[in-house]
């Protein structure tokens, strides 16, 4: 793909102090987002944490109350006309004219961009439909589409042209497990072609496998961002030893220089796992000291645990 990754080293998305207030409510509160070129960036957060408002600001649909935005190296929203043709987006669910066919809808949205080629339009529309597996239903009115089919059509719309950046807001919403897998494969293949993919979700598990980077939103603030490795590391993993010899195990852990933790479970000892200490070193030290080990696990190192730690658990909408 020729349009991809040609415009220098500036991040695909960079915001500084980006804020949006609706009345007295601060939907987005001073976020400094950095999405490197070529990354698959997972934008995580519970419902109502400001993800969609941020995406709307990135695309120039909503004006920022404060802060600056640069997308693909150019300021937004002042350079909408040169930036957005290089960006494909799915924002807050798909939206189409129900009385038009899937193909007619894509044709219209492509015609809306005045510098997209009319000569290649039909071929590009068909290719996009093919890519999301909608060729057979292309002639049906969108009215008759299921939610999953609309979602696919929305993704097809983002793929009408070669894009440098794809912004996909909750792309797996309404899809069955098979569709979710297909979206993941699609994101991967887009990234392989060199595009930067910015994908939001409230379900970490949906995108964890495809992301190289992630940012976590909570109540309008960006509480963490970085590569997945960095985020995991920031989570301070613990080593938990299941053993009948708790006292001996605690002695060994302390001797290894690990910080011991209060452990409420019976027949278990735990400690923070320091950077230089591998879990297997802990195991061999325990065995060498004669402590009987039933099990040894590292906790707090999955993104899921880190995510819950950052955003809180439960069903309550943040605000």
């Amino acid at each position, binding site marked *: 793909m020729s349009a991809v990754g040609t415009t220098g080293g500036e991040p695909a998305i960079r915001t500084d102090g980006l804020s949006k207030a609706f009345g007295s409510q601060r939907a987005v509160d001073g976020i400094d987002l950095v999405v490197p070129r070529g990354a698959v960036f997972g934008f995580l957060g519970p419902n109502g944490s400001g993800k969609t408002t941020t995406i709307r600001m990135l695309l120039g649909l909503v004006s920022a109350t404060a802060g600056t935005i640069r997308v693909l190296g150019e300021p937004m929203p002042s350079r909408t006309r040169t930036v957005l043709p290089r960006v494909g987006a799915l924002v*807050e669910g798909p939206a189409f004219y129900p009385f038009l066919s899937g193909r007619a809808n894509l044709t219209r949205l492509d015609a809306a961009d005045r510098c997209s080629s009319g000569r290649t339009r039909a071929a590009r529309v068909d290719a996009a439909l093919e890519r999301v597996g909608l060729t057979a239903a292309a002639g049906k009115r969108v009215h008759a589409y299921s939610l999953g089919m609309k979602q696919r059509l929305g993704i097809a719309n983002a793929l009408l042209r070669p894009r440098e950046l794809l912004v996909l807001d909750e792309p797996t919403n309404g899809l069955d497990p098979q569709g979710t897998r297909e979206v993941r494969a699609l994101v991967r293949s887009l990234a392989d072609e060199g595009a930067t993919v910015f994908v939001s979700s409230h379900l970490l598990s949906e995108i964890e496998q495809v992301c190289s980077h992630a940012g976590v939103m909570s109540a309008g603030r960006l509480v963490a961002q970085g590569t997945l490795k960095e985020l995991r590391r920031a989570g301070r993993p613990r080593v938990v030893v299941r053993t009948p010899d708790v006292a001996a195990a605690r002695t060994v852990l302390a001797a290894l220089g690990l910080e011991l933790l209060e452990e409420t479970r019976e027949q278990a000892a735990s400690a923070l796992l320091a950077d230089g200490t591998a879990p297997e070193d802990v195991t061999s030290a325990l065995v060498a000291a004669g402590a009987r080990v039933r099990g040894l696990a590292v906790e707090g190192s999955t993104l899921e645990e880190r995510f819950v730690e950052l955003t809180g658990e439960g069903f309550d909408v943040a605000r």
Partner: protein
Amino acid sequence: MSRAEGGGAVSARRGLAPGDEERPRAFALLGSQLAVLFRRRRTWAMLGALALVPVLIAVAVRVTDAGTPGDGPAFLSSIADNGLFVAFTALSVSVPLFLPLTLSVVAGDTIAGEASLGTLRYLLIAPASRVRVLAVTYAGVVAFALAATLAVVLAGVGIGAVLFPIRDVTLLSGDTVDAGGFVLRTLLLVGYTSLSLLGLGAIGLFASTLTTVPVGAMAATVVLAAAGQIADALPQLAWLHPWLFSHYWLGFGDLLREPIAWGSYASDALLQLAYVAVFGALAYGRFTTKDVLS
């Protein structure tokens, strides 16, 4: 519109992939807008209802006697004598209610309809500039005004020719023109009536930028159309009359004089242009600064 778009095209071209080089297609979205408008069943239902007005009138006149001259809508008594008058009669019946009503539906739906479907955000990130979306949706309103007037006039001419004799027409000024001359005047009539609706269309466009509920914008526009005509009928508000968008709506009788009296055509054009300018500017001011949250 074309100037603003021309300026954008030069800078926009830099964002293109090499294989995509082509002269920017300024009218692709306009064509698409018209296709969306005329592929909708609702549009055809409204045009069909409008076309029924002359049919209803012609049939009513045909199956009863002609009635007394001076009773009923303008030109009604002339129909039995000459089928060419059906179109004029049908228009004078449609102008106060049916035409503004259907036009309000289309005008109120412009921005608010796209917003409620959610397609507005996808048009804007395609990207189509907000000015362009506004201009193109208004062009759809203009096209509908023309189509609606044509529906009434063509159905009127058709049913008139079927049910009544077609002969030379005696004009209001007493002169006589042949059928060919009358067709020319009928075309001028189509132009006049479509033009008369442009001001209301601009009001509807502005109303449509204020809400994401299309029915609200439609209702507001219809209410204004009615209020304008009521105000126009109150002699106490005589000072206001020349400024009302509906003031010249029924002024097309002047097209039936020889020579044609262009006075109301010109005044109407000027007035409608002023409304388009004012409400177009309001719609622009509102829509270009609005947060699109739908």
